[in-house]
């Protein structure tokens, strides 16, 4: 099994007794779920850099907290990531040109080999959704989670999840249909 060196937990030292077991289970969790967490973060944020930061931040917090007492660390990790993403958004703002000299452009690296049009249109469609709607859509249609699992991740009732998805699909339908027409 691959070993990952983890930071010492508060009040403890890795490699001894219970802390060693915690470190092992966290290492296994990161190995099994890390990449999927990065992909989830990317679908939420649309940014490579932000996806890595978000996933890294969540895994670090989990490693400090420990995961052995969690019923479902996968759901917990998604919930942490959604909250972290939302906090990040609230610390930032956008400019529509009133103060262009104060705007810092995020760098976008074009991928010459990808189906740029389709991916960009998917990204553009996702961005019209609120962060909560986006999270619900990704958890349902990419992660294939049930209403109850999504409700746990978003901290809401399953009925609310259904409403979120219904509204999101209506928005996405218009956007994706337009993009399909443009491509054909």
């Amino acid at each position, binding site marked *: 099994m691959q070993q990952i060196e983890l*930071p010492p937990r508060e009040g403890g030292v890795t490699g001894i007794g219970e802390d060693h077991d915690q470190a092992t289970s966290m290492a296994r969790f990161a190995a099994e779920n890390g990449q999927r967490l990065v992909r989830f973060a990317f679908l939420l944020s649309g940014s*490579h850099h932000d996806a890595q930061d978000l996933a890294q931040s969540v895994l670090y917090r989990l490693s400090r907290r420990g995961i052995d007492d969690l019923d479902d660390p996968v759901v917990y990790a998604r919930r942490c990531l959604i909250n972290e993403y939302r906090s990040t958004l609230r*610390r930032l703002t956008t400019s529509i040109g009133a103060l262009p000299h104060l705007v810092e452009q995020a760098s976008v690296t074009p991928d010459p080999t990808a189906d740029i049009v389709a991916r960009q249109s998917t990204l553009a469609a996702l961005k019209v959704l609120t962060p909560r709607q986006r999270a619900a859509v990704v958890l349902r249609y*990419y992660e294939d989670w049930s209403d109850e699992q999504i409700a746990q991740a978003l901290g809401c009732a399953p009925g609310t999840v259904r409403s979120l998805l219904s509204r999101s*699909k209506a928005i996405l339908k218009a956007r994706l249909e337009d993009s399909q027409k443009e491509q054909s």
Partner: protein
Amino acid sequence: MNDRDLEQLIQRRLTDLAEDAPTRFPTQRPSNVRRRGAVRLAGAGVVIASAVVGGIVLTSGNDSHESPSALCPNELRYQGERYWAVGVTRMPTEGKRLPGQAGPSPCDDGFGTEPARQIPVYSLPGASSSSAIIADGKLWTNTSLNEPPTPVVAARKPATCQFTSDTAVTGSVTDIKASAEPRFDGDVRGPFTLELRTEDPAITGPGYQWVTLRARGKAADAPSPSLVAAVLYDGKPAVVELGCDTNNFVVRDITLAR
């Protein structure tokens, strides 16, 4: 398009898009692993960015609780005006206390509206309150401005190194970037860039509460994961020994402040 077709389309598009996600996320630490990505302390260094999530354009603040916005701006309302937060490298000292209070713009990002709160407002010395204010530890400019006031421009200028010899600076590390693979445990390998916020008046100069110094470091001087965790995630103060390379700051050493 019926509902089933739509769901399948969404699924295909997301799966395809996910293939574009970053793939470098090592689960083992080889001896020569290189790490990329910022290890940021949440809440530090507010910056205005136009493409944080790949280009969302905010058309207006949304006052309706019925239709959530895709993005809620970091915006204040004061005396009937709207102000946006400005990213600065040095924070001016607050001027006089201004009448009334400011409050965040009501905006629902789908998770509910941010709770209303009243925030004291201070003048920015050298600027009218209708153009720029200081509140909540940040600098804010009126959204209707076409040009920022001079004090705002000055607050955004990067700090340059003027030390005559290596100098120990105490402050908070607000960001560490390394040019290697991302790791979730704070491992910094290879050359790195560090941002240090200090309130030392000898460094900030008159008229400023704090200044952020950006310094480059060599691989040999990279902080250990436990030190990164302490200063970045736990927010413990650090002492960073800095030297100058022309006008650029260079990291010589990093330790925890006592």
